[in-house]
């Protein structure tokens, strides 16, 4: 099997019964149609002439040689599940930014998982396959464009890693060159100084050292510039790439500025509070200094009374009940919408 640590020496081919004990180089293959394993020589022998039925008793599915491959996972069930998931993922390749709301995306994910689960556990295989096929035909364009997008992303990612590596290599080379140059300069300086000292010219030594200092400063600046250029080049490239990728599907938000209250205003629909209402029994309070000093304002009384007289006037219970009913159904609508799209 695939795991060399747990290699079973008694493992044998179910078709020709040759075992690993007799043939240590035996390789087992299986076909993702029926997942029956057999040894390589059996595969060659049986399927050389073209498609043939599976030799395992009571299987008899028609297999082709080119579909045979090595088993990746020890457990056939896992192997099969991975295959199914791969296949479903090829068709259902929408992403979160294809959906307007998280809820829709989650519904979609649930739907996909339902299909996958059904296929893996062989529940209603026929219907599920039909659903899969229908979704595939219905969303052909989207699937292919999503696949292209995914491929582009993969390529971009590979390129980005490549570019990164390249720039690192360049930087390394530059650092080596720099060190070399520096060393050479030091040597030159040493030689020139020695020469000057040998000729006994003290002033010349000073001049040489100053010139050298200037030159090394200039070199350093140049190197920094170069490094900067390299860095910005790499950054710019990655930026450009990501913006290109993101730009393919970015939705334009058409709503206006953000409103924290969601359109709620504090204006009263049906009335405006006046400063004064002619009202006999409120006269007393209005003129009562004690009440006023205590913080009782007649206007607040008006405000409250009017609010209570109108709050809910045009709120109709039957309409609200209908709306709630509608909302209750709407939750199932979103669930249905996906399955409608699929089936």
């Amino acid at each position, binding site marked *: 099997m695939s795991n060399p640590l747990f290699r079973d020496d008694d493992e044998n081919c179910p078709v020709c019964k040759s075992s690993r004990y007799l043939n240590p180089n035996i390789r087992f293959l299986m076909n993702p149609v029926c997942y029956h394993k057999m040894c390589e020589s059996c595969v060659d022998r049986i399927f050389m002439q073209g498609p043939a039925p599976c030799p395992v008793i009571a299987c008899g599915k028609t297999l082709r040689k080119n579909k045979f491959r090595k088993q990746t996972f020890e457990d056939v069930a896992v192997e099969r599940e991975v295959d199914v998931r791969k296949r479903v993922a090829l068709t259902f390749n929408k992403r979160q930014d294809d959906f307007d709301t998280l809820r829709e995306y989650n519904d979609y994910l649930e739907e996909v998982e339902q299909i996958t689960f059904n296929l893996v556990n062989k529940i209603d295989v026929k219907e599920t396959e039909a659903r899969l096929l229908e979704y595939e035909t219905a969303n052909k364009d989207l699937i292919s464009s999503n696949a292209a997008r995914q491929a582009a992303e993969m390529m971009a990612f590979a390129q980005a890693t490549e570019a990164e590596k390249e720039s690192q290599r360049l930087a390394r080379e530059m650092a080596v060159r720099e060190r070399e140059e520096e060393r050479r300069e030091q040597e030159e300086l040493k030689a020139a100084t020695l020469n000057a000292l040998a000729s006994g010219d003290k002033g010349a030594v000073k001049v040489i050292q100053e010139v050298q200092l200037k030159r090394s400063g200039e070199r350093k600046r140049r190197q920094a510039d170069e490094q900067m250029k390299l860095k910005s080049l790499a950054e710019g490239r990655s930026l450009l790439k990501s913006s290109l990728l993101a730009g393919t599907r970015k939705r334009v938000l058409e709503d206006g500025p953000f409103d924290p209250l969601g359109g709620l205003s*504090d204006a009263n629909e049906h009335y405006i509070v006046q400063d004064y209402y002619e009202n006999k029994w409120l006269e007393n309070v209005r003129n009562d200094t004690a009440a006023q000093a205590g913080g009782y304002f007649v206007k607040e009384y008006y405000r409250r009374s009017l609010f209570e007289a109108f709050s809910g006037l*045009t*709120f109709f219970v*039957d309409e*609200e009940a209908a709306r709630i009913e509608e909302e209750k159904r709407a939750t199932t609508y979103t669930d249905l919408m996906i399955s409608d799209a699929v089936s």
Partner: protein
Amino acid sequence: MDDTIYSTSTQHRLFTFTPRQLSDLRYATNNAAVEKITESIKRRAAAAGIVESEIGEIDCPTAEEELKLVAYYCVKCMQLSDHFQFPSNVKATALTFLHRLYLTTSTLTLHPKKLLLPILYLATKTENHYTPINSFIETAATAGPQVTKEDLLDPEFTIAMGLRWAFQENLVPPAAGAKVALLELLAGDMDRIGRAHGEARRLLTTTALLTDVYFLYTPPQISFGAFLEADRELATFYLDVKFPESDLPARKAKTKLLGVLDEIAKNHLSAGLSRESKNPYQDLLLQLPHNGITTSLAMAVDSALVKEVTRIDKKLYRVTKRDQDSAGKKKTEEGNGNGNGSQSGNGNGNGNGKYDEDEERRAKKRRLEREKAEREGDVFGASLSDVKTAGAGSF
């Protein structure tokens, strides 16, 4: 904005229904209570060793009968409130509490008679109408019922749960105060406005509190409905001012609103309603005269109605009594005379005459307590204080 704020109120969230929902809820409450009590009676009978076939029919009040009973006690509550001379807001709150409580609680579980005074007292507290408890008890005594502080305060928790802790409500101000404020907006015939307001107020503090309008409509609609019933011309004129013809949405809202107000006025508040008039809510269990329910104080004194309510009350008493008593006892109390009641063994030795009267009374109390504990299967025995007195008595 006004409507949005209203939609967040507890009244809207917990206690507003369509007629169908309200009726369904009442039936559901009755069903649940009947099931519970039947079960309980059967269990007790089985424990006392009575075979199922001998239990006999358990005659529980129907949802209709329960509603009649509650409606009758609502009238009683109103009269009580008038006796206390509480302001209309306290009265309205108390009645709303009663209505709301008996939406989800059956009279089989909690008898309304015991709750009238506690609810009234709770309403004074809710409405900030301070009444010292002692003076409340005194005033209650002048009307008849003798109550203690505990009688008033103990049921409060149960009531509050039945109300789902929603005490605050803005029912009354639109009925009483705001009405005036908005009428003042009209510069017109003050006399006429005064008359209309008086009539609307009368409707709102009597009939409206005995119907289901508070479950079915919003408070402003109710008060405008009463206004419409009081003076149709004036109310329509006022609405014309508020909803100008030129504005299409306003016109639409007005048409709809007028329909609703008409419903309130004609189907609920109108004085012309009687048992014989046409029922707009066929097959629905609402508090309407058509269902034999009092919606005015005048109707409450109708002897046929009182008779009907007394009958229901007796029926209710019999069922609850059966549930409380042990199976054997109920047969003798009902006086059916079919002597197959297997007496639960309570032939314990009574006091042997040596004790004085006081001692004898204590012994009797102990025995009753023991029996009660046996019935209820109280595994932890009587409370500590009782055990103490029992011990003292035996020495």
